[in-house]
């Protein structure tokens, strides 16, 4: 692709680099763009990336590994989209992913990005682990394989392979069973949802994944899908329809909220616990779902819910989006967004940071350890908090 063919050629120069994109909604600091918060160099700001993209594509600067790192440090969190007041704001992240696409096409990629793409193509997951291990998390849980149940539970790659994220999908599985939700899983047939692949700029692989998944869902007569990950939720909800994949898709917190509000679960009253909630970007800013997780947390007996200073569409990203939960370009510093986020929760005297995304779970839990706060604050998925509070938890559903 040449500069002439760049889809956003007519708008990319419109970024003034005024810096609105660095702020949360209430203007309290300039650290709401994760890469800028981490490195505090203008190159890592949203405007810096756009100016560099334009300069690279019109050949004023050359490709370097550092340029690639700058472009891939964007977590696609959409804070810039929310904050930029100008008419082209809707396309800011699209411009970055389009530039990444050019890097993919020319083969000029950071090693970690290459590895993620290769692994996903070969194994259907970014970790490069065997497909046959995809349903190991469900061993002994008597979770049914999908076969015309009401819902397909789409586990996603993190829930399937990451040992910490597995705990959240296991909790979710138990809750759904306890509430007698009709659901099944695809097990080793499940494949990557493609969201991160799209964000990394590999549109060809993304399309292949989407088409394969749609074919698989149609073959199994899937109509309704529950996702553990907001990333999968985003992909299936927003991208699959363009390829003929029309499914009713729910993030699991929407289902748990309904279970709770319908009175299908009994809760025990436990000791008071002070919980804050971290909005995942792909549930919040990308899909405007801020209330379902909060409704759940606020209605669990004993929970004292407290908002962090930056919440809802001002939430600071954990730093894991756009493939960064594997590449970890933003890690290794007290300024890493995940560590900043943990400190923001600690400032509110929260005992628990509740999350509703397996990537946020992994990123923030690692950050708690790096901050040496293991004894002061914990990171828990809403599914785990929900399960803990269930009256049945002391009896059958925790088996």
């Amino acid at each position: 692709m040449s500069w002439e063919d760049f889809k956003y050629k007519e708008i990319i120069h419109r970024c003034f680099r005024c810096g609105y994109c660095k702020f949360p909604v209430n203007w309290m600091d300039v650290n709401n763009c994760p890469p800028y918060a981490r490195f505090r160099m203008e190159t890592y700001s949203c405007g810096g990336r756009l100016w560099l993209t334009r300069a690279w594509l019109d050949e004023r600067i050359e490709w370097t590994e550092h340029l690639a790192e700058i472009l891939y440090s964007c977590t696609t969190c959409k804070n810039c989209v929310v904050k930029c007041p100008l008419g082209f704001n809707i396309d800011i992240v699209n411009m970055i992913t389009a530039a990444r696409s050019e890097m993919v096409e020319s083969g000029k990629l950071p090693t970690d990005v290459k590895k993620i793409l290769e692994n996903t193509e070969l194994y259907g997951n970014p970790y490069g682990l065997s497909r046959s291990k995809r349903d190991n998390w469900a061993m002994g849980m008597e979770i049914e394989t999908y076969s015309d149940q009401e819902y397909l539970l789409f586990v996603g790659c993190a829930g399937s392979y990451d040992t910490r994220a597995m705990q959240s999908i296991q909790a979710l599985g138990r809750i759904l069973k306890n509430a007698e939700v009709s659901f099944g899983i695809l097990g080793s047939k499940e494949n990557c949802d493609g969201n991160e692949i799209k964000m990394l700029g590999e549109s060809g692989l993304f399309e292949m994944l989407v088409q394969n998944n749609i074919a698989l869902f149609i073959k199994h007569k899937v109509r309704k899908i529950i996702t553990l990950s907001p990333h999968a939720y985003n992909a299936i909800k927003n991208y699959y329809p363009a390829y003929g994949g029309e499914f009713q898709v729910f993030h699991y917190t929407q289902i748990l909220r309904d279970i709770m509000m319908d009175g299908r679960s009994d809760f025990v009253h436990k000791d008071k616990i002070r919980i804050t909630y971290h909005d995942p970007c792909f549930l919040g800013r990308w899909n405007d779902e801020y209330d379902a997780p909060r409704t759940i947390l606020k209605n669990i007996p004993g929970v004292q819910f407290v908002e962090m200073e930056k919440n809802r569409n001002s939430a600071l990203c954990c730093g894991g989006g756009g493939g960064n939960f594997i590449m970890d370009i933003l890690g290794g510093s007290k300024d890493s967004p995940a560590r900043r986020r943990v400190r923001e929760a600690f400032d509110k005297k929260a005992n628990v940071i509740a999350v509703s995304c397996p990537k946020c779970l992994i990123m923030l839990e690692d950050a708690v350890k790096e901050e040496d706060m293991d004894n002061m604050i914990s990171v828990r998925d809403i599914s785990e908090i929900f399960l803990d509070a269930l009256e049945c938890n002391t009896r059958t559903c925790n088996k």
Partner: protein
Amino acid sequence: MDSIYKSLVDIVDKEHVSNRPEELFIYSFDLGTAEPRRPDYVVSPATTEQIQEIVRLANRENIPIVPLGAGLSLAGLAVPQKGGIILDLKRMDRIIEVNENARYALIECGVSQGQLTAYLEKNFPRLTHSEPGAPPAATIVGNIVIHGQGDLAQPYGFNSDLINGLEVVLPTGEICRFGSCAVDAGWFTYHPLPDVGLFFGWCGTTGIVTKMSIRLFPAKPIRGVGTFVVDNESLVPEIIGKLTYTQMTEDIIAFSRAIPPFAAGLQHITINIAADSEKELEFKQEIIFDDTLGEYIRRGEGGFLGFTRGLERPQISKTSDYKKGGGFEYVGGIMPVETYSQCYRKGREISERHSIPYTVTGRIIGAGHSMMFAWTYAFNRADTESIKQARDALHETDDLVMELGGVIWKPGIYGQKIIIERLDPGTRLLMKQVRKLLDPNGIMNPGNWEGF
């Protein structure tokens, strides 16, 4: 390895020092029309002590230093004219102290307008600072060292008049403090010690301000904006005189612009009013809009467009996107208010000559003592001819400011040159000597304020 690079890494750390092409590219640009110039290094220090060490290194190596806040002056003041080290100061962003009784805030040089506004609204809602119309990312110190003005300029003057003290790293690396803090008496006043005000308006050529105490003012719970409009620009100075006489307003801004076309030629005057109660608001509105401006309405010379409650702080500007080109720059002139109609007419002529929709704005400073009159020129960043047109218009406007008896605010290189040509010989000599005395090796932002 490059020895200067290695020394900078030793002083700061590897992640906040760069000599890579990407950083050198981004930091070579101003956001206005100034030609880019590549720095050799970009450094983002975290402490005053690091700045001292960098300055000493620069003296040893005889390499320029260019201090940078948010880079939003739009006049090219932080473009490294002769290369060297760009010192990005935004990491030094602590709000160190707010004294509610003495009404001041002590801040580091990288604190942004948005950050302080949000901090005060949350923690000290009865206090406010004079916030300029710049984007919220603009740094407070950056605005003050260029003699910026804010939305309290009408009652209180330039933002650089509203300081209680400062800490500066001199071009030779020593730390100096000015104001009561110099005698370890806190940061509550700039006076009455001998005046050594050498750091405002100098475009970073005399030192690097690292801390500053700025004055805060009562933030009334009810704030809003009234808009009055006239079609005869020659009435504006008289109206401003009457409004400032009431001593009941905060910000007063007169503006006119080509877009939307139906309003071209009209002069809008926005008047900020603050009050503690509905009764006070009603009283002020009556005095300002009925008693003071009513006569113009009765004579059919003006109209009241209404009063909107609430102030947008920080202000959101979309000026850069007027031409969907991502660029604008303005010349600000500190002008006598009586020149308003000439500023408007001649500014409009310049814009039309360069095929740029005109936008002119005058913010009143003090009780009508002066106004900052801005002539704004939008351009398309992707079109070199459009950039040239804007640059030509800006230079013509620099000349216009001086012709009309004003002084160019935050002049770029061209503006500095025409000011120096007109400088009183004694002043010119003193400025030359001050620079030489403070910066014997000429390392501080060279290219600016030169040729005395």
